[in-house]
C-alpha cells in the first residue's frame, strides 16, 4: 500500500542541468532485474556523479555533503525526459527524495512519480533558480517546505509559491490510495464497456490463436 503523502520540510539538492534524461538517472545495466528496485538509490545519477575515470566528481552537487539527506530535488527543464523506465523514479525515491521542483518534466516520468508518491512540482524557472542559489548555504537555515494539501512551496526566503496537481492525483497521494483497487470498484462499468465495444469494434478482439 502507498503511504499517505505528508508535508515535506527539507534542504534541497540543486541539479539544475536541463534535459536530464532517464538514461542519466539510472543506467540500463542496473535494470532488468540486475538490482532489486529498493536498492536502486545507490545507483541514481551514476553518469553525472562520476567522472570518465570512474572517480567521484567533486564539483557535482550529488557528491557535496551539504546536500546529503535532502528530501527535495531542484532540477532544470524537461527533467526525466526519455524512456518509460520507472527505475528512474525508484532510484530517485531510493535516495530519499520525496519532491522534485522543476520548470518542466518528461510526460511519462511524471506519471511514474505519482505511482511512487514522489511529488513532481512545476514552478517557474526563476523560482527554481532562486531556490538553487540559496540552497548552497548551511543545512537547516535553508529549508524548503512543500505542502501538498495547500499546494504551496515556501522557499527559504519565505516566498510562497502555489503549484497545481490534478485533483485525482492529489487525492490519491494524500490518502495513499491503491490504484488497482480503486479501478476494480468500477468492474461493472468496465464489463459494460467491453460488451458494448465488442459489438461496435469486433475486429479489436482477436480470436484465440
Amino acid at each position: 500500500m502507498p503511504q499517505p503523502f505528508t508535508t515535506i520540510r527539507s534542504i534541497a539538492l540543486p541539479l539544475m542541468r536541463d534535459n536530464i534524461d532517464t538514461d542519466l538517472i539510472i543506467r540500463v545495466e542496473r535494470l532488468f532485474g540486475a538490482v532489486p528496485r529498493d536498492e536502486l538509490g545507490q545507483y541514481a545519477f551514476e553518469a553525472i556523479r562520476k567522472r570518465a575515470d570512474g572517480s567521484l566528481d567533486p564539483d557535482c552537487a550529488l557528491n557535496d555533503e551539504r546536500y546529503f539527506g535532502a528530501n527535495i530535488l531542484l532540477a532544470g527543464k524537461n527533467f526525466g525526459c526519455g524512456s518509460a523506465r520507472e527505475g528512474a523514479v525508484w532510484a530517485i525515491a531510493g535516495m530519499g527524495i520525496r519532491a522534485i521542483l522543476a520548470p518542466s518534466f518528461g510526460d511519462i516520468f511524471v506519471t511514474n512519480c505519482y505511482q511512487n508518491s514522489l511529488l513532481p512540482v512545476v514552478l517557474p524557472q526563476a523560482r527554481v533558480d532562486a531556490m538553487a542559489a540559496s540552497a548552497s548555504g548551511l543545512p537547516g537555515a535553508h529549508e524548503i517546505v512543500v505542502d501538498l494539501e495547500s499546494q504551496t512551496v515556501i522557499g527559504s526566503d519565505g516566498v510562497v509559491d502555489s503549484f497545481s496537481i490534478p485533483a485525482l492525483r492529489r487525492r490519491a497521494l494524500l490518502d495513499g490510495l491503491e490504484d488497482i483497487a480503486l479501478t476494480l470498484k468500477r468492474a461493472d462499468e468496465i464489463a459494460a464497456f467491453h460488451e458494448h465495444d465488442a459489438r461496435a469494434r469486433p475486429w479489436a478482439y482477436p480470436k484465440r490463436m
Partner: protein
Amino acid sequence: MAMSAPRTLFEKVWDDHVVADLGDGFSLLHVDRHLLHDGAGPGLARVKDRGYTIARPDLTFATADHVISTARGRPPTSQSRTRALTALRDGTADAGIPMFDIGSGAQGIVHVIGPELGLTFPGALVVCADSHTCTHGALGAIGFGIGASELEHVLATQTIVQQRRRIMRISYRGECSPGVSAKDIILATVGAIGTAGGSGYAIEYAGAPIRRLEIEERLTLCNLSIELGAKIGMIAPDEKTFAYLEGRRFMPAGKAWDAAVAFWSNLCSDDGAVFDREETIDLSDLSPQVTYGTSPAQTIGIGGVIPRPNDIEDAKARAAIEAALSYMGLEGGEPILGVPVDWVFIGSCTNGRLSDLRIAAAVAKGRHVATHVNAWVVPGSETVQRAAEAEGLDTIFKAAGFAWREPGCSMCLAANGEVVPPGARCISTSNRNFVGRQGQGARTHLASPASAAAAAIAGYIVDHRTLDA
C-alpha cells in the same frame, strides 16, 4: 442527436475508449492492446503476488527483444538477463498470454511486431512499458509508453487512468529531395521543435508529404515523437494503411474486414477541428540529417557545420553544447562530413524494418565496409529477417563485410550487453544519442539507414548521395 462538434483524430480515438470520466481531464480508458517485452516479468509476478488476476490475457501479447543476445545461437549473456527472460516466459505461460518467443517466427522488437502482425491497427489504444510505443500511432492508433506500476494496473484491469493531452498538429509541405528519408524528416523536426516542445501534447503529423510516406516510413516518423517530448504521435489512416494491414495475422477478413475499414475511414481530424498548437515545416531544402551531440535535437544537415559554443548567447545552452561536444569528442565550427566512425548500427524499432534494410543493402551492394569499422545489421523481427533473407539482403550485407545478426534491440539500448566500447564513435539508425545510451562513454550519431550504411563503407560520415563506388 445534435450535430457533434468537429473533432481531431486524437479526440475520436480517445473518446472511443472512455470507460469512465474521472474529472479534471482524466479518464479511465479501455486498452485494446497491451504489449509486453522482456522487462515485464516482475510486473506479471507482482500482480499475482498482490492477489489480482490478469484481466484480459487475450488482449495482451508478449515478445523478447531488449535483453536477448542478437548473436547466432542466442547465447545467455548474464544471470540477471536470463532471469528476466525466464520470468517473462513463466509469467505469460501462467497467465495464458500469447508470447512470440525466439524461434517462433514472429519474435522481434515489440514496436516492429505490433504493426507487422496486425496486432495494432487504426483507432486502437496501445500501451507498452516502453516510451517508443508512440510508433504505433503511424497506423492511426493512440500508442504510449507506460511505467511499471501502470503496467500492473493494465494487467489487472485492462484499463488505464490518463489525463487528456493537448493536441499539436505538425503540417509538412514541400517536396523532399531524393535520398531524404522519414528519419531525416523527423530528426529535423526534433531539431526545430526541441526535445521538450511536445511535452503535454499528442502530435498529429499531417500534410501531403505525410500522405506520400509509406507505412514503414510513417512508423519511423512516429517512433521519434517521444524525442519531441510527446508521448503520443499519430497519422490519420488512409488507403495505404488499409493495404498495409490487410491479410496480416491478427487482422479480420471478409465482412469483418470491410466493417473495420469503413469504421477506420472516419478516423481523421474533421474540418474545423481545433488544435491547441499548429506548426508547419517545409521540407524543400532538407538534406540528410546527422546528430552531433547528446540530444536528438542536436542535429544538422550532412553539409552543415557543428555549432560553435561561443556563438551561443544563453549561458546555459552554451554549457549544454560544450558538454555535449566534449562527450562526443568534437569541435564546434568543424564540418560533420568526414568525422571518422568506428561502429555502425543498422536496426532498432526506428529503422529495423524491411524497407530500411533494402535501402541500406542498396548502398552496401558491391562495396565493402572500411577496414577499421564494425558494422552490424540487426533486423527488427524474425519476420523482417526471413523476408530480407528471401530476397538475398543478408548475402549482400555479408559480402560487404556487415555482420548479419538475429532480431532484437541490440545496440540501440545495449541492455543485452551489446555495447559500443567507451570512446568509440557509432553512427546508428536508432532514436537516442543520450550520454551512455549505447554503452558507457559511447558516442552516438543518429542518422538514416542510407547515411549509416554509407558511413560504414567510407569509414567516416559521408553524404550517401555522393558516395563513390
